[in-house]
């Protein structure tokens, strides 16, 4: 049987402007630039969707506003919205986001990944799966799954 795409014709959104780097002369050497929402968003915006050649940002799966962050308490929560309710890729997308953030954030952070309430038919299950340490570890032991995740993450490390 040939599998069709889960969402064959997704809506594509415009990419937002990137943060422009300031010239080093104008910045204060000692000023602290804390990790902020946009920085987290910069980490995950370019993750490729598992089934389309578009980024999560283009598909509006993640937005800057969907990221909650508390730098002092070392806490990040990312809420993502699958493009369709029955999207079986939701767990893969969530796993990609988690792996990317584990690799990009200092180890002091606790990362919490959630599906936006009401956006997925098996919301509770997905949330549970994504935030269970053991299951995430087990998933990453699976070479097929890991390959898939690496494939999705490849454009974000340019």
């Amino acid at each position, binding site marked *: 049987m040939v599998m069709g795409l889960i969402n064959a014709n997704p809506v594509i959104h415009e990419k937002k402007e990137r943060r422009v780097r300031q010239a080093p002369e104008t910045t204060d*050497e000692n000023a602290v*630039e804390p*990790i902020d929402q946009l*920085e987290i968003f*910069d*980490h995950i915006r370019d993750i490729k969707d598992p089934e389309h050649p578009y980024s999560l940002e283009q598909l509006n799966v993640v937005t800057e506003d969907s990221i909650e962050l508390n730098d002092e308490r070392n806490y990040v929560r990312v809420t993502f919205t699958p493009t369709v309710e029955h999207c079986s890729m939701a767990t893969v997308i969530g796993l990609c986001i988690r792996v990317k953030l584990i*690799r*990009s954030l*200092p*180890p002091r952070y606790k990362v919490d990944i959630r599906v936006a309430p009401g956006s997925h038919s098996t919301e509770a299950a997905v949330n549970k799966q994504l935030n269970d340490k053991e299951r995430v570890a087990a998933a990453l032991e699976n070479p097929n799954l890991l390959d898939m995740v690496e494939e999705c993450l490849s454009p974000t490390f340019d």
Partner: protein
Amino acid sequence: MARVPLGEWVPHVEAYVDVSRPAAQHSASVDALATLVNKDRLALFDLVSKMEMYLTTTDHIVRSRGILLLGEILSRISVKWLDVNTITTLSDFFISRLSDWQAIRGALVGCLALLHRKQGVGCIVFADVKRLVESFLQNVQVQSLAAADRKLCFQILSCILDRYPEAIKTMDGEQLYWICEAIDEEKDPECLKLSFHVVEVVMKLFPDPSGLAAQFASEFFEILSKYFPVYFTHGAGDDLNATRDDLSRALMNAFCSTPYFEPFAIPLLLDKLSSSLPLAKLESLKYLDNCIRFYGADRMVRHASAVWLKLKEVIFSLSPEQLLLTSGSAKDAEKNKNQMVSETLNCLKTAITYIDSSDKDLFINLILLDEDIVNKIHSMSSAEKSILSSLEDLAQVNALGSVISILAESSTYFCTRVFQEHLTHLVDILGTSTDYESRQLNTCNGSSSAAVNYGALYLCVQMLASCREVALVSYAECSSLKLAKESWWLILEKKLDQLIHLLGLFLTLDSRSMQSMFRQEYDACAVKGLLTLATFPEQCSPLQANAFEDILAMLTSVITSKFENVDLWRLSLKALTSIGSSIIEFNASQKEVIYCRTVVDKIVSLLESYDGSMPLSLRLEASYEVGTAGLNHMLRVARSLEGAVVTNISKANGRMECAEYVAHLFECYSSRVLPWLFTSGGINELALSFAMHLLDEIKDLSMLDRISSQGLLDSLMTGMKLLVGVCTEEQQTLIVQKAYSMVSSVLPLPLKSMTRCLLAVDELVPSHSVQETALIGMLSSVIVGLRLQTPVPDMIVMINLFTVFLLNGQLPAAYALASIFNKYLHNPEFSHENQLDKIFDDILERCFSTVLANSYSKISHSSVDISNDANFLYVSSGNIPSKIDILSGLAWIGKGLLMRGDEKMKDISMFLLKCLCSGETLASTPAHEEESCGSDSSDTSIATSAAGAFNVMMSDSEVCLNKKFHARIKPLYKQRFFSIMMPIFLSKIKEATSMETKLALYQAFGHIISNAPVPAVITEAHQILLVMVDSLAKLSVEIQDKDLVYNLLLVLSGMLMDEKGKECILDNIHITVSVLTQLVSYPHMMVVRETALQCLVALSTFPHSKIFPMRLKVLQAAIKALDDKKRAVRQEAVRCRQTWQSFA
């Protein structure tokens, strides 16, 4: 040439005919055979006779391969001469093969190759072409073939059409119908491009009204129309030989090929104009534009009203919102819109110019009497609210304005018609609204409601601009224009005074209440109107001299008084500049006088005034901009800048900001005015007189005192250098003589006695007064700027003089000495070169002894008498700063010598090396183990400044010794110095035992490495890498070395990019990586951390086995950097971590 034996070439034929071989082998064998034939080593006849079996066999696969081989070979020998018989035989063969549908490919290739042959190398005879056409049309069913074959068919067709059109001219309808059939339903882009071309040429072949083109126009157009507008999304990267633009252009050419398409094309294009797709609209506008040009007025007249109506619809409906709906982003919409507007206006212009030929009034009546247009203009006058309230209004007014102006500027007659119709009326509207306005102004005491009628204003200004265009084109027949009844010129003249008055009023209006967004539009309009009026060509300008002066005065008053409105201010300034340059362009002498009087004088006087209300930067900008209008104006500006500087120096106002003021003036003078004058060649005496003037001013001592107390000295010195630098040799001679005589008359030193030898140090070292120092500073700036050939009076005296001040720790004296030695040391014009050499040695000795004297004496002191130590420290610590100054003075002199490649430079660098190691000598003396920390610091400071001296020597400087100041620069001097010093430093570093010495050596060597050209450093990588890495590690402790650390790191990263450098790093990978991982947490500079991470990323491409042992270390460093306080570093850390993690 010897023939090749059969056995050598027949396998090629067999290989080609064998379908099972790979494609690469096929093409290789064709190439081989073609080369053989081209080189005459294989006769075509032999080839064909040997291939007979392949060409005639009944197995159609083999046959088709055989024929194809012959065709391919033929197409590859297109430059080889063939005789008539061969050609005829070949064409007979290929023409007959056209009927063989199974082997058609080879026949097509062969025919095409025959058709392509050039005249000189034997080409197909005309009768054969005719036969070919007949056979082709009879036998080939184009649409039933594969894409590649279709392409060949179209190529054959277009080749025949381009080169042998007579063969087609005799065709009948049936054959034309065949062409129709062939291109119908074609979908391949490359074939389409060709088929469009075929249609274009075919249609052009039959221009006769009763000819075939006229008969078949509807059929052909029906086929073509299916492709309009061309929708084709493949980009350039798609390996297709056609882009959308190519296709669209080919189709457009086909559309325009014959006027017989007109009844079908124009309705289609007009229809597509109302499409909601921006692409379709744009395409139709482009096509329409071309079609109007091509079809001619007679045919287009009947469409005139339809064309106007559609264009009107497009012009007035271009709102940004609508465009947003149809395309993706706001940016796209903006771009589309701009393109659409310009295309529409282009099209309208074409329509106006091309359609009017038969009936003069046809098109203009259509537009001027159009209900919408009339209504729109009328609504402006009636509605009180006709001020701008939204973007939409603005767009409407703009659209209307562009229609009117395009209409008016297309000819004198149209211009007159438009003016008759509207100008008087509009000016009156403007007048009433402004009357109303000024009443308001009076009653409300300045707070106006700004009910200016923007629409009327904008239209008036547009009309002015277009009548200026008309005047520019036709100013020869201007006199007749003035006489003609009711011409635009007379209408304009009548309303002129009122118009100028009104426009001026808008400039002075204080409309703070208006939305700032629209405020700009008003200003731009008013200024543009005035600018247009003032730049009418002289012969047909309706403007009287006094009116011209009024306009200038209005704009100038904006400059002088309304600078808080920056936009208006800039606009007015630009307008003034363009008026000025247009005066020069039209050579209007009377106007120039007025311009000078009203504009230049006023603006230049801004510079001289002390009025603090207007910012200096604006004043300078205004003067410079006005100056750019013409050479004379700029000279005027330069003179007044000079005046301003001089008055500022001589005025005893005692303000500290004065120094900054003068610095700004000099900055403007030297960086903007002088370069401009240079490029326009008007410099000559200017700089000389300025420099002389400056020297005059500083003549007396009290003045010098004030200059230095107000901090003016630096800017004066910089200014003087620049001035002297641009002067010619003769001028410089005058300046230097004057400066020298001034110094010798003022300075209370025994100059006369200096001619022979140096005075004793003790005599001279008593510190000099502030005035004397300032004077020497000025003299030194003169010397620094001199050219190589300029003679200097009493050079020995001067050298002595500067030496005295150098020993006193005055850096400007060192600049002067460095310049002298750089430029004159061996100049043959100076006969006393030996003397110079000796003097130079003398100076060095003097400096060396002064620097070292104290430390040695201190050594003796402290070792002999410790009780005296405190007393001594007081004395010596007073001297340390001047010692440091002398050291850096020496560095400058060394730089001067280094740049000209002089051997004596060695003496200085050796001495500096000695200073670097001065700590070492101390450490080696056991008596000093318990040395007090005070003296220790003095030694380190000398060592540090000696290290800094190497930086001075190697780096480029703005202060002196550069191209601007005519320094002698030997090519590659940095590289040479690097290679001389490298072995010395390496051995010294090896010998050094104490940490301080090592650090100082590292610093000095670091300066040399980081300033040397990177390729030169990389060639020595194997020798210096370890030292570099170690100095990175050692220098990263202290904060003051942060720039040096960064520069060294950049050199290291340069090595990482180079093959040779990589090899070397690979040999020392352990130590390199561990230093880099340390630098990842370098606290003093963000870019260092970032670059270190980037270097680590680059290292990850090294062989796996070499770097794997370091993986853990790097990862730990990167993970630590993930929590860096700077974002850029964190970003780099993510990359670094990922690359090093991924090769687990």
